[in-house]
């Protein structure tokens, strides 16, 4: 009965959207994990409001999850979508601007009611005309009533039945893109089967019903396959940036042979790191959910003093609260990793939206001359590597390290090739061994890299006092001596600067000479690389210099800058990295491309800007 055509696609973007209570995050995750298991390249972008249940049916309450999958390695979640699943008129309205030409739009027909049009702010009862959707492949199945029909034999209340409509929509997409249902079903079993097997069964039936509906009707002209991507050989898993960060920290603790201690306070979008660390007591991880952000970092500083690998995790407003204590860790020369998952600011700002506007806070947001190491991760997967490196630098150089990620890579997920821990280097902190009796221990003596020893309480002969007052350069006791203060200010700066010896030389993506050098840092890498790659394929003389090590900057940046006619610094703020680079490289002219919309760049806007700069 089925004579539809199967068409092969290289690259597809699907956006699932609905009310924030409609389960769109789960729907998107199940679709992307299924596709990852099939061997596609994947990148995802959850986009949701801060309210757990924003007013139902309103545009403000729309929660979205975008999945970009393809027959190659995918490095960004896609700008515009090929398929939009909209569970209500508000979702349709909110995502209208993200449709590709000829996109397929699947809307729950049952949701097209006058009340819902009103809530979503439609002026008429004709969303197609009002949003200009003529010419799109519009499919309007009655998802809610068909879900109800499919589950009528189960003894479930209406509310639980209606909650399964997202799985009906998932079933439609599984059919459309020829995905197997088994991963989603086994997930539902593991999530619900023990607590409420009926709910698991209902959700599984809804997937089947959606799948069968799509197969049996003629609403979809084609189905599609997306071949597997030629990914690097190895064992993969799906991982998001926050989990990768947590695991990277745990890996650093393992390599250092020290217990991991995390003192933190819940804050969006960083909370998942604390939640993940709290799970892994089997690896000896200790977590303290502190009474506030300040206690989060202060418990971590105490743990570092006592000889644990100590971390605290937060987002922008929390970093503000931790500033004073961070200065104490600088003064005490204790190893500490502070993870800042950046979000839109200032103040409470946009808690669930991404931005890169904490850079200058990370670099300078403390009283006094107070340098810390600042590094930034650039993809969900490399959060693991940079969290590991943050720990390695902190412990080996006895300094606080701020690791910047952002809401985009923290929540986004990708297939991640599982590393072997044997490929990661050992971490060798300068732990001081017990001291012979009668010999004075000098806690602030240091090695050639200006690094002092880490002397834990509990070790004989190492009793010493440190604190936030200026320290004598050897004994660590209080010193108000003018020349000692000058020496200590410069020593602390030199210690951070010396970290450069451990950093890889800065790389450039593309030729080392050309017309335009794009500079980016942190979580914008996927979009910048896609845009630059596209223009390189067109023969344009454009390259990308993407920074992960920010303070200190790695060697080789100046040499890269010298090779280009124009330089543009692209970042999701109003020019914080550009200002920093101007301070370091005064002989160059840095142009800027900035965005503060709470959203990632699109490759479309980037390529258009780069073309403009190239043609000028």
């Amino acid at each position, binding site marked *: 009965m089925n004579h539809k055509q199967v068409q092969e696609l290289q690259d597809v973007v699907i956006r699932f959207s609905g009310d924030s209570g409609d389960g769109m995050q789960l729907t998107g995750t199940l679709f992307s*994990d299924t596709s*990852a*298991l099939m*061997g596609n390249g994947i990148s995802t972008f959850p986009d949701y409001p801060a309210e757990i249940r924003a007013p139902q049916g309103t545009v403000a309450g729309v929660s979205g999850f975008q999945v970009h999958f393809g027959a190659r390695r995918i490095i960004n979640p896609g700008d515009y979508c090929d398929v939009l699943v909209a569970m209500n008129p508000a979702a349709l309205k909110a995502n209208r601007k993200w449709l590709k030409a000829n996109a397929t739009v699947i809307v729950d027909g049952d949701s097209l009611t006058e009340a819902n049009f009103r809530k979503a702010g439609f002026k008429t009862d004709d969303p197609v005309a009002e949003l200009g959707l003529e010419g799109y492949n519009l499919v309007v199945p009655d998802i809610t009533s068909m879900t109800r029909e499919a589950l009528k034999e189960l003894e479930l209340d209406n509310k639980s039945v209606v909650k399964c409509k997202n799985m009906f929509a998932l079933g439609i997409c599984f059919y459309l893109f020829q995905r197997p249902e088994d*991963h989603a079903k086994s997930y539902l079993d593991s999530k619900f089967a023990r607590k409420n097997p009926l709910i698991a069964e209902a959700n599984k039936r809804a997937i089947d019903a959606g799948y069968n509906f799509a197969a049996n009707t003629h609403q979809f002209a084609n189905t599609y396959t997306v071949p597997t991507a030629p990914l690097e*050989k*190895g*064992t*993969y*898993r*799906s991982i998001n940036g926050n989990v990768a960060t947590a*695991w990277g920290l*745990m*890996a650093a603790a*393992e390599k250092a042979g020290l217990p991991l*201690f995390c003192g933190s306070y819940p804050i969006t979008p960083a909370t998942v790191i604390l939640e993940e660390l709290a799970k892994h*007591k*089997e*690896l*000896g991880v*200790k977590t*303290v959910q*502190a*009474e*506030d952000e*300040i*206690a989060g970092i*202060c*418990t*971590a*500083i*105490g*743990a*570092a*003093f*006592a*000889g*644990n690998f*100590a971390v605290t995790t937060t987002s922008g407003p929390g970093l503000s609260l931790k500033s*004073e*204590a961070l*200065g*104490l860790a600088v003064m*005490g020369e204790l190893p500490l990793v502070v993870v800042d998952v950046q979000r839109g600011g200032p103040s409470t700002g946009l808690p669930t939206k991404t931005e890169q506007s904490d850079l200058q806070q990370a670099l300078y947001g403390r009283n006094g001359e107070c340098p810390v190491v600042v590094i930034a991760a650039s993809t969900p997967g490399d959060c693991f590597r940079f969290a590991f490196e943050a720990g390695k630098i902190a412990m080996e150089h006895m300094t606080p390290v701020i690791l910047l990620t952002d809401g985009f890579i923290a929540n986004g997920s990708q297939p991640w090739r*599982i*590393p072997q*821990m044997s490929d990661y280097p050992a971490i060798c902190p300068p732990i001081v061994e017990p001291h012979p009796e009668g010999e004075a221990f000098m806690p602030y003596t240091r090695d050639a890299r200006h690094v002092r020893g880490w002397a*834990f*309480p*509990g070790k*004989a002969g*190492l009793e*010493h*006092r*440190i*604190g*936030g*007052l200026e320290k004598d350069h050897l004994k660590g*006791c*209080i010193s108000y001596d003018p020349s000692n203060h000058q020496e200590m200010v410069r020593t602390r700066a030199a210690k951070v600067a010396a970290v450069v010896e451990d950093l890889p030389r800065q790389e450039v993506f593309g030729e080392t000479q050309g017309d335009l050098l794009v500079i980016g840092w942190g979580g914008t890498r996927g979009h910048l690389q896609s845009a630059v790659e596209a223009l390189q394929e067109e023969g344009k003389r454009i390259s990308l210099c993407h920074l992960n090590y920010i303070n200190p900057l790695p060697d080789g940046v100046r040499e890269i800058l010298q090779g280009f006619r124009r330089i543009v610094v692209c970042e999701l703020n109003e020019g914080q990295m550009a200002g920093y680079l101007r301070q370091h490289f005064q002989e160059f002219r840095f142009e800027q491309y900035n965005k503060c919309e709470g959203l990632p760049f699109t490759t479309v806007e980037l390529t258009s800007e780069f073309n403009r700069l190239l043609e000028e």
Partner: protein
Amino acid sequence: MAAYNYTPADFKSDQEVKWCPGCGDHAILNAVQRAMPEVADTLDTPHNRFVFISGIGCSSRFIYYMKTFGFHTIHGRANAVATGVKVANPDLSVWVCTGDGDSLAIGGNHFIHAIRRNVDLNCLLFNNEIYGLTKGQYSPTTKLGKITKTSPYGTIEKPFNPGELVIGAKGTFFARTIDAEVELTKQCLVAAARHKGMSVVECLVNCVIFNNRTHADFAADKATRAERTILLRHGEKMLFGAANDKGLVRENGRLKVVTVGQEGYTLDRILTHDAHERDTSLHLMLAAMKYPDFPVAVGVIRDVEDEYVYDGKVGEQVAEVQKANPIRTMDELLHSGETWTIG
């Protein structure tokens, strides 16, 4: 019981003590250095396991004068830093030196949460009812109406009574001592060290410069101290007075001062102190007693055993999870759950 045979000199650092002459902190330092050898032996804790953590203020300079591990942190945060130290290494004997400004104003949050979690810390709360290091501003314990530099017309804020705060927060240990009573301070410190969980010892100290004689009504004169304070000892009658003939009884739910042998009050009617009672009501009343209506209670007012000691529970939970979950390395974790192979 170990025998380390330490002396107070083993706990004295080489730093010159820089508190003002006549400051009550000198006497507390003396008591602490005298208590440490006994604590070391009683709890089998060698010298290198003592850690002193402080915040900011005159009292927080304390740690520089102790020849132990010490960390002079930032204003208000000593209890939070100390919580991290104790959770990171529960074998350490962790002491917090803090003041009424440090722990009851800027650090109030960390103070009550350390009590709530019942972290095994020993917190010495130096209460001089004033900000001394910043030169004389009123604190959360300054008496109502007191004229200070920031209250030139008298304070209009009611003070905290630290004992009520600690016991009200279901603290498991609270003791009070007076700077001049070095032996009593020492006894309170040893009891605090023995207690598993958060121990708060309020030290009533005199600031000779900015709040001289703030506790003087009942504490200054050794001769009248017996009449105006009551030393509470677990299991003993609540008696006081130079002739030990006054006592506390409870009538209509309230405490009352009586004289034994007068108005029909016999010794039997006098309350017996039970520091181990879990119910907080009598301990609260005892901690709240103010001179001249009542004698001020000193000694160990509350000392309640509680199995929920935070740092211990952290370790227990790790051990329990390790029993149930066989994963021991990152490699095992990385390959756990759903994975797939390419190539």
